[in-house]
């Protein structure tokens, strides 16, 4: 897919790295930018005001047995 004006920019990625406090070498920031750009493209294209409400969560079983989580 071609680059889009709504794509996350390299500077935004640098800012997120700074805010998150993680250490990523400068020579690898371009790779990380590519990851974030591709992963976020469908999210940035989503207009949350126009799409029908969708539940994000997996199924929740309120009546789950006590040992359901292996305890």
């Amino acid at each position, binding site marked *: *897919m071609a680059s889009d004006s709504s794509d996350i920019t390299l500077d935004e*990625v640098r800012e*997120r*790295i700074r805010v*998150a406090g*993680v*250490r*990523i*070498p400068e020579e*690898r920031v*371009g*790779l*990380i930018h*590519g*990851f*974030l750009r*591709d*992963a*976020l*493209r*469908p*999210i940035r294209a*989503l207009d*949350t005001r126009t*799409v029908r409400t*969708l*539940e*994000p*969560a*997996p199924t929740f079983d309120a009546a789950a*047995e006590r*040992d*359901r*989580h*292996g305890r």
Partner: protein
Amino acid sequence: MAADIEFLGIAELGRRYRRRELSPVDVATAHLDRIGRLDKTLNSYVTVTAERALSDARAAEAELARGNAGPLSGVPVGYKDLYATKGIRTTAGSALLADWIPDHDATCVTRLQQAGMVMLGKLITHEFAFGIQFPGHRFPPARNPWNLDHIPGGSSSGSGAALAAGLAVGALGSDTGGSIRGPAAACGIVGLKPTYGRVSRAGVVTLSWTLDHTGPMARSVEDCALMLQALAGYDPADPASSREPVSDYTAGLAAGVRGLRIGIPRDYFFHGVAPEVVTAFDAAIGTLRGLGAEVKDVVIPSIWSSSALMVIMLTEAYAYHARDLRERPELYGEVLREKLMAGALFTADEYVQAQRLRARLVEEAHRVLEEVDLLATPTTPGTTPAFAAVHDPNFPFARSNMFPFNMTGLPALALPCGFAPNGLPISLQLAGRPFEEATVLRAGHAYEQATEWHRRRPDVR
């Protein structure tokens, strides 16, 4: 004779055991010998459990003598080293867990051992089922038996390589973004990612709670069906485990595809696909059509949102690894560490939106699967890359034909459908409705019976 033994399928092994033409101990010994000869080059096993294999084989022999043996009894298996094995080192391909000896078996391991399988050992995985093994890493990478300069796919790299080379009859893999189907495609074998919740993840090191699947890998669809029969079913130790009744995966295996409707989603899945892959795929569809399947194009409108898988996977992987990344970062491979840290760069709303997109994709895929019984796509856009390419730290993640079925949780099967001019395998992906693994396997088996691709063997010595 030796090579013949090591490439027999599960059903044929069972027939020969019952006729007393072969014994599980002979077969286990033949596999251990072959591992000893070939695996110095292939690196598919990180731990070989020879004593355990012979002990399991003797137990299977006793079951056979009593007439109690099931279809998997005495069949040699390797477990991806992401699956906990009681008393046996389980590394997840990592330096962090290099000396971890679990006090329990993963549920899948328990089920296959109870079915009488013979544990040959633990199969190398990419680091934490995600990172590529770089030179100098704690464990050397498995190599592709079809061409040692190429990767065997990942992350179930050892599983794919061992099966292709005749170093196991069955194996377990795990699949978060294609890690069962990718190695199956790269190594010319068969891999099934079952429906989310069909096979337990309990005791398997987590990459992403939303996307992780476990499942069988083998050299034929029938063998995958036989293993799935033992693996499938509710497990209280896995919060995502389903109570959906388990089907009979072999009863209808030979029923053919006449009247089955197969949909081809042309958008996304054919973007950037190599011409030789398209040719092999078209020929495979022609074969299925010739067997009586009805084929039509279908559309999944938001299929391109599949790339949001990376948001979910990286965020959840970061959540799982955050503490070790802070406290023992030096025990991660450099490139994996940076990729995991990328999971800290997404915002909470981006993670939630990715899950919403996933919900939309699930809904759309279910709608399409009212029109057709199966979806067919190339498993990967090209043949497997060379080590030299993936060892570039900037090697990107390509768009994946496998992501959509982790996002939707639908069952998806990868099986060989040809070879490229460079001698490397090409793979067909068949996906079906939730919990309809039997239909997926039936179509795959029909295709296999009409073709010879799954019978080709690499020249390893």
